């Protein structure tokens, strides 16, 4: 009983850190609202370290995820004949003074999937590896393309996330 309450309180703290971290990552990259990729970046910064270990398990460097996000933009623009490096549109960090948090649809999808995932996993605290597991299941979008740019197979990453959670 008390263990459940303690876990619940810990999860609430983790959710708060995850959301504020995602907001921060989005703002650093010049975006007002966080999307799925910003939640992954935020999970990689969580102190439990499990998100980073998921990448380690498959021999990928988690620190390369940010540059992979940029790479997938460069690749997508080059497919329409635009040389991203030749134009000055690098994002400028923005300051956000919104009182109420909102996410882009992919960010909302991450939070919804996290909730569902945690419903079936009530004995473990919410960890960064849960976020990676949810993000690895997203077939399309920036996270999927960034993982592809890193040469990561999503199903392999999802399996590594489950293994990390089992060993946590």
């Amino acid at each position: 009983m008390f263990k459940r309450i303690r876990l619940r309180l810990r999860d609430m703290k983790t959710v708060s850190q995850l959301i504020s971290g995602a907001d921060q990552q989005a703002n650093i990259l010049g975006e007002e609202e966080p999307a799925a990729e910003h939640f992954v970046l935020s999970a990689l910064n969580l102190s439990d370290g499990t998100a980073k270990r998921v990448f380690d398990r498959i021999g990928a460097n988690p620190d390369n995820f940010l540059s992979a996000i940029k790479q997938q933009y460069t690749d997508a623009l080059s497919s329409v004949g635009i040389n991203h490096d030749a134009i000055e549109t690098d994002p400028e960090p923005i300051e956000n003074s919104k009182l109420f948090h909102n996410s882009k649809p992919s960010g909302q999808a991450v939070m919804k999937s996290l909730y569902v995932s945690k419903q079936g996993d009530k004995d473990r605290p919410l960890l960064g590896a849960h976020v990676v597991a949810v993000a690895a299941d997203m077939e399309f979008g920036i996270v999927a393309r960034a993982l592809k740019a890193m040469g990561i197979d999503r199903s392999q990453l999802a399996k590594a996330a489950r293994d990390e959670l089992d060993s946590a």
Partner: protein
Amino acid sequence: MPNKNSLPSSDNPEEALAAVVALRAMAEQLERKAVKSAITQGWSWSQVAEALGVTKQAAHKRHATSIKKQKTTQ
């Protein structure tokens, strides 16, 4: 403007949609920089709005806070 022939084929919607997302992000960054530059050069919000094809309220709501903050931190 890229040649229409260089656009991703409609047979490959994944690539085409990825390009749409990247173009939107690029347009957003370009808009932010251009508005900041215009306001710094003394343009009014009405002029910025007219150039962007949006209402003055929409332009102001979208950009005023970040521009004000950047000015006060300079």
